[in-house]
């Protein structure tokens, strides 16, 4: 099962928070309110981020690591925790496997080695390690700063290692929490919008699970995992994937290496796009299904980062020809010979029959409890505030949690004399991704796209605020105005991808991906900057 292990309430009651690769102040403002309540109560916040973001301004200490050195940092912290005798030996022996190998793995990562590789002062690494390990309750929260690397999976595993090392998981106030970027990203994964999973995270290669679905639908489902997004683009490149149905995404502007992505999408035999806006992707589609807005023009459920399933209700009729997603999909199914009825509650009850972790969540109960947190196995089950409590049971229920052998590797897009600056990308408070959902709204904080550079680099390159420069990577070039930002140090630059119509940032970004899951290395591009 994939999801944050803790409830929002827990971040308000924890003692130590490592906010790693996340500018939650701007990108997860609602979650950050819960985090602020925790700070007010006395929690210590450590912000681990290459930039001193607005989130980092709230932190006890900001650790400004070099891009792509997260594993070096976490392994150094781990060694420090172990050598200082702060590891939770009892928990390690009781609930984990592979500790000895892990100890050997992190052994070379002395504080000095960690500082040399990450740039973070040894004293800062030491303080974070000690505070995290000795806190009564501690959490690690992360976002795309951890996952948008070619080492995405190992980055996440390295954080899990820290939690296993200290026993900071499976208890109230201690946990591991990826922050979700949209109101319902969690729900999408829960419902099986993953290459290898059926609803409720049941593996497609598990025959028993799959047959349950076969019986329900009266068909035989493929027994093999599918493609993730990067696989799909590779398959398009090979000509193996010829038709694509895109729901609520704008890959023309959100994919890394935009030039290549656009060419591949335009080369398809059939492109179907279902969206509430006529996006750049939709404009290239053969068929466009105008869709109702999920938040207020349709019935159903959303699931947030704390795994809470909540009812969403229709308050407006969609404009023009736009229709609810469910109605569109059911019509499509009917044309394909399946007589599905577009009834949201009936559909939800089907989920409850097929996904054990949702079984207890009737509409009536969701209403009564203002949402329930999965897993919720039956109508008497209150839902789970936090996950992995089983690791503390005696004996451990289910398998023990393994330490992962995580190896530090620098980003693939190397810095050279020709491409001497590291570009990282991210988001700002007022904007959302490619701007499809936010660009139409007025915001007093909007200042358009810029290439943010440190004051030192601006001086060296003779750049002034607002001056337009050409930014070139190994894949493409864009022109953007300069913004001088104290939050950056020399060599580090920053852009968003909120304004693709004026500055197509993803023309620059690397198409390197993590082979395990396909996430692209948006966070590490090598560029040069020249006067335009």
């Amino acid at each position, binding site marked *: 099962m994939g999801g944050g292990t803790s409830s929002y309430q827990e971040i308000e009651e924890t003692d130590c928070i490592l906010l790693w690769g996340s500018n939650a*102040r701007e990108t997860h403002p609602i979650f950050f309110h819960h985090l602020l309540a925790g*700070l007010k109560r006395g929690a*210590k*916040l450590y912000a681990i981020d290459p930039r*001193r973001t*607005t989130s*980092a*301004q*709230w*932190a*006890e*200490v*900001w*650790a*400004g690591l070099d891009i792509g050195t997260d594993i070096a940092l976490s392994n150094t912290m781990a060694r420090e925790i172990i050598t200082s005798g702060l590891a939770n030996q009892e928990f390690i022996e009781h609930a984990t496997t592979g500790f000895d190998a892990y100890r050997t793995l992190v052994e070379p990562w002395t504080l000095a080695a960690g500082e040399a590789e990450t*740039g*973070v*002062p040894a004293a*800062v690494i030491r303080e974070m390690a000690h505070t995290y390990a000795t806190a009564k309750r501690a959490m690690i929260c992360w976002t795309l700063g951890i996952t948008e690397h070619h080492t995405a999976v190992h980055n996440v595993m390295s954080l899990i290692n820290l939690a296993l090392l200290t026993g900071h998981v499976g208890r109230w106030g201690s946990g591991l929490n990826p922050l979700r970027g949209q109101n319902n990203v969690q729900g999408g994964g829960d419902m099986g919008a993953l290459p290898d999973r059926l609803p409720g995270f049941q593996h497609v290669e598990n025959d028993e699970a799959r047959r349950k679905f076969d019986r329900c639908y009266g068909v035989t489902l493929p027994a093999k995992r599918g493609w993730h997004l990067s696989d799909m683009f590779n398959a398009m490149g090979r000509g193996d994937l010829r038709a694509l149905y895109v729901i609520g995404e704008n890959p023309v502007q959100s994919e890394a290496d935009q030039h290549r992505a656009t060419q591949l999408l335009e080369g398809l035999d059939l492109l179907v796009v279902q969206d509430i806006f006529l996006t750049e992707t939709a404009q290239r589609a053969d068929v466009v299904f105008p869709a109702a807005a999920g938040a207020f023009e349709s019935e159903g459920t959303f699931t947030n980062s704390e795994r809470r399933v909540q009812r969403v209700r229709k308050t407006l009729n969609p404009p023009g020809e736009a229709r609810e997603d469910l109605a569109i999909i059911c019509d499509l199914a009917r044309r394909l010979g399946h007589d599905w009825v577009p009834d949201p509650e009936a559909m939800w009850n089907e989920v409850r029959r097929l996904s054990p972790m949702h079984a207890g969540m009737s509409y009536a109960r969701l209403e009564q409890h203002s949402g329930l947190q999965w897993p919720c196995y039956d109508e008497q089950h209150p839902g789970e505030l936090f996950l992995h409590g089983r690791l503390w049971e005696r004996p451990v229920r289910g398998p023990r949690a393994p330490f992962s052998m995580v190896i530090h590797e620098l980003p693939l897009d190397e810095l050279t004399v020709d491409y001497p600056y590291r570009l990282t990308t991210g988001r700002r408070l007022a904007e959302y991704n490619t701007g499809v959902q936010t660009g139409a709204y007025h915001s007093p904080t909007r200042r358009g796209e810029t290439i943010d550079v*440190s*004051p*030192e680099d601006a001086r060296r390159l003779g750049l002034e605020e607002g001056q337009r420069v050409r930014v070139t990577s190994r894949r493409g070039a864009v022109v953007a105005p300069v913004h001088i930002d*104290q939050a950056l*140090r*020399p060599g580090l630059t920053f852009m968003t991808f909120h304004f693709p119509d004026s500055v197509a940032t993803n023309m620059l970004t690397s198409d390197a991906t993590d082979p395990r899951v396909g996430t692209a290395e948006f966070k590490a591009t090598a560029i040069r900057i020249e006067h335009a």
Partner: protein
Amino acid sequence: MDLHIVGAEATAAERAAVDRLLGPPPTGWQGAARDIARDGRTAIGGRQVTGDRDLLLPAFHAVQDAIGWISHGALNYVCTRLSVPPAEAWGVVTFYHLLATESRPTAVAHVCDDIACRLHGAERVCRELEARLGHAVHRSPCLGQCDRGSAALVTRAGANPERFVISPLTSAEAVVDALKGIDTPKDWSPLPAADEMKRGDETKRGDQPSGWSASTVSGATLLRRMGRSNPSSLASYREHGGYVALARAIEIGPAAVIAEVSAAKLLGRGGAAFPTGRKWEAVAREPATPHYVVCNADESEPGTFKDRVLMEQDPFAVIEAMAICGLATGAGRGFIYIRGEYPESERAIGAAIAQARAAGLLGSSVAGSGYAFEIEIRRGGGAYICGEETALFNSIEGKRGEPRSKPPFPAQTGVFGKPTVVNNVETLVNVLDILIDGGAEWAKIGTAGSAGTRLFCLSGHVARPGLYEIECGQTLGHAIDLAGGVPGGRGLQAVLLGGAAGTFVGPDALDMPLSFEGARAANATLGSGVIMVFDETADLPDTLARIAQFFRDESCGQCVPCRVGTVRQEELLRGRDRGSGIGDQGRVLLSELGQAMRDASICGLGQTAASAIESAYAILPSLKGTGS
């Protein structure tokens, strides 16, 4: 914090002023030159920085003192140093009258035009000064110099900033000279030679142009050191009985100190009359730590000057009493919050603290007792509301001085959210005699419901304005007689008891006993001890309009009934056709406004903003109805 520092930068002089207070900035993130090897990799924030938020107001005072006003650049620098969002800091800096956010002359005069000074021609002086000096002159609410006639507070910014009071202000010339930098008698020379003063010596007292007057009771009294001991000498204080009470407190220990204070039935002298012993006991038994002592020296009630006289004439008594309070309630740290209009009090208390500290009477082991106690002075910024205890806490914490909702009460959640004893200056000083005499013995002075003596601030139309210590239960008429009665053989029109937040009484109230129960029986209040006398020639409608203006100025704006009600009240009184009164309809409206403010304001300011005005209409036939 979200620090969106944009635009204006501080000048070197502004930075230097802030750095003198806070020390040099430790990193580039706090305003030092950016050192990329350090600042590019780490930054300290969170509580380690925001923990200094309480230095916000002191930092603004530092800039104001050095430069004369607080520019956007200076504000930004202070915010960078203390990690406070500029928008929030702007809310703080604009809250306080004495802090300027627009450029103005380095030397300015704040000239009192409040109710007592108006009786002595303050309006005429103000107009003349405004015509001659323009925006170097600012009208001020009561400066607490009502025993001396009209007054002005002069501030001159610079490397060696000056703040002093001119009082009595007999002509505009003195202010003009002061602003030019011509030496003028700065402040009133407080001390006649000690041997010239004798307690109860009415003749001598009458010879003083102004100042305190001694007691009319025998035995231990609050003012016994006045004019005898040298207020700037610890040795002199000790010669006159100083630090005997502290020694006694150390000897008997915290629980017994509280028992004595409780046995004395001492009630708070700031206006609310809460039992002091109960307050101390509540704080002493709170498990949360640390505990704090706050001495409320933000004496701003118009017509009140008793705490100023105590601080200037007997500063060691104030800090000795604070140390005893700290010992009794388990507090290691105390604040004395002195109103910004009292530079002389601040100097006197500051000097006393330094001497006491040097003598080991403050610090890690007070008088060798093992109890630690330190005192820090906090200067107010010119805001009446900060005399309200919870507003005062917010002000110390570097926030706008807006009152908090109660409960929770200060004994549980006071300054910095911790258990706090907050006492008025006079209340604290009483504790010294309670310990020396014993609580039960001390309680024999005064009446059953009002133990002890009280300090009354006699001002207005009396022959000898000043501070009089009177045993509780003596009559109002007796107090006025002590001050020489109404001069010039004129008749008495009214007396204002308790200041702007108090009540007017008429000549028929002279037999009223000056005790809590006596005042209550007469539907009046003694408040902070103001007795302001108006003879038959006084322009009462003018006084009432000034009181209304005072509350409109001083309302913090937090609750609607007060914010709107004080404005409507002033409109009503200013809009009246002079000589014809406000009319019956106006009286109804006035009483409805008063009721709304009493019912729905969260603090005493709104609850009492109509009280003096309503009482004036109730007792004075000349103001009633449509008659003149």
